[in-house]
């Protein structure tokens, strides 16, 4: 774990990060990752990954319109909205 990696990960996570924070993170993340790497000791050959412990079948929904039509509620908490749209700073492509 080095500063460059920390900055790249912060970019991926969309977190502004100062130089000082990046330095601090290098050791903190480094330490945590080193600690979790003890999993390397565990023999997991031909063990299936376990994604969810809910031992039920996925339920499917009927194709019915049961929601929506609540423009006001959807926009209620918006930091900025106009004429039914959310408004954001321009995306620079």
């Amino acid at each position, binding site marked *: 774990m080095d500063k460059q990696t920390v900055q790249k990960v912060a*970019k*991926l996570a*969309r977190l502004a990060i100062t130089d000082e924070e990046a330095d601090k993170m290098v050791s903190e993340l480094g330490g945590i990752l080193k600690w979790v790497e003890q999993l390397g000791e565990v023999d997991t050959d031909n063990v299936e990954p376990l*994604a*969810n412990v*809910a031992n*039920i*079948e*996925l*339920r*499917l*929904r*009927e*194709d*019915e*319109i*049961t*929601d*929506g*039509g*609540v*423009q006001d*509620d*959807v*926009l209620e908490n918006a930091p900025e909205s*106009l*004429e*039914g*749209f*959310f*408004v*954001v*700073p*321009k*995306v*620079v*492509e």
Partner: protein
Amino acid sequence: MAQLIQGETGEWEIVIGMEIHAQVIANSKLFSGSATAFGAEQNSQVSMVDAAMPGMLPVLNEKCVEQAIRTGLGLNAEIHNTSVFARKNYFYADLPQGYQISQYDQPIVGEGKIEIDLPDGSTKDIGITRLHLEQDAGKSVHDQHPSKSFVDLNRSGCALMEIVSEPDIRGPEEAAAYISKIRMILRYLGTCDGNMDEGSMRADVNISVRKPGDEYGTRAEIKNVNSVKAVQQAIEFEARRQIEIIEDGGEVDQETRLWDPNKMETRSMRSKEDAHDYRYFPDPDLLPLHVSNDQIESIRETLPELPDQKKHRFISDYGLSAYDASVLIAEQSRADYYEVVANDNDTKLAANWVINELLGILNKDDKHLDDSPISAEQLGGLIALISDNTISGKIAKDVFAEMYESGKDAAKIVDEKGLKQVTDTGAIEAIIDEVITENPDNVEAYRGGKDKLFGFFVGQVMKKSQGKANPAMVNELLKKKLT
């Protein structure tokens, strides 16, 4: 007919693979109960789930799963009994969750294959790599304000099928043929309306070039090509661009590029590149999707006859040319129309009339077959009158024009206008005698050996009968009388 293009260093082959995003026909969204109709007021078809409010959870729409399976079967593809929804993580203003729920290493549909029809009447197989279900994003409007974008989430969460092809496509024509065939199949299946203007079908094109026989070159992915024409233009441009780079000793970058229909060029989308690590992982809010073979079979039983099956049946049962057959099956309604016209009629004659006369004039007035003033039964009636010699092909064209105007039946027009063909020997002989007495010199000349004049006599007779005399009888009787 993999068409090659000429560069300075010789011929190049264009290698194309496509990702088509097709919006699934369903009343509600993939994971929420909001409506999917096109063109609603902004953010009026958005639920708390679609807006990714805190604590909201996805629940899968069974119809979308059926539609994906149905489409997979239509693409002759393998349906997976188990598939997994995964999160594709990236930030964008119209991606409320900060991730798209998609399918990654376990899609619902695996490998398949379709047949595309090329302009020269030949066909080619194109491999399908996979089809997976995923959420659509919302829409950002960038051109309304100098420094702000406006976000509408109506489309956010609508179900898409991403159909990925093998890199089997060579050149713009094949690309166009591939898109139209996919579109045709989806429309036959009723799983997507294929409407590219409304964005319910969108294509991303992966293009690379190579010298024939070489390894694949580095590919660029072209986004935002939203019409068949645009796809062709984008391929033309991008192939040329890549060939120039290579021939100038450069290297093609693997990147995402945007088609600009106004500048007619592709341009790099670096901004999308910089954070290109989607961190796919199984969505912990959902469980693996299981579909049984019974479910798959019961869906298979409801499949309609698909374009290729129909085409081959038209060729074998109706004796049509591959070209005519593919024109007629291009749309289900067109094929159905034709089959009614051809019923108890000369099938080839029926095909000519549907394709050349009816589609011709509808095209001219840019009308769709559904609003044709002439019903299939009516056109069949007209063709029957030709077949039983009630009217000649020439008269039939006038009758057709009249039918198109008035919507009347052919038979009705024929009596009203008295266009019934004259087949009574006496009547025709009477006309012939008139013509002979009116043209003594020509009769002389003909009998003197000027055979070319025969046509002149036929013309005279037909003219006097206002085209109604049966041409075959006119010929026969004239020969008798003139010799």
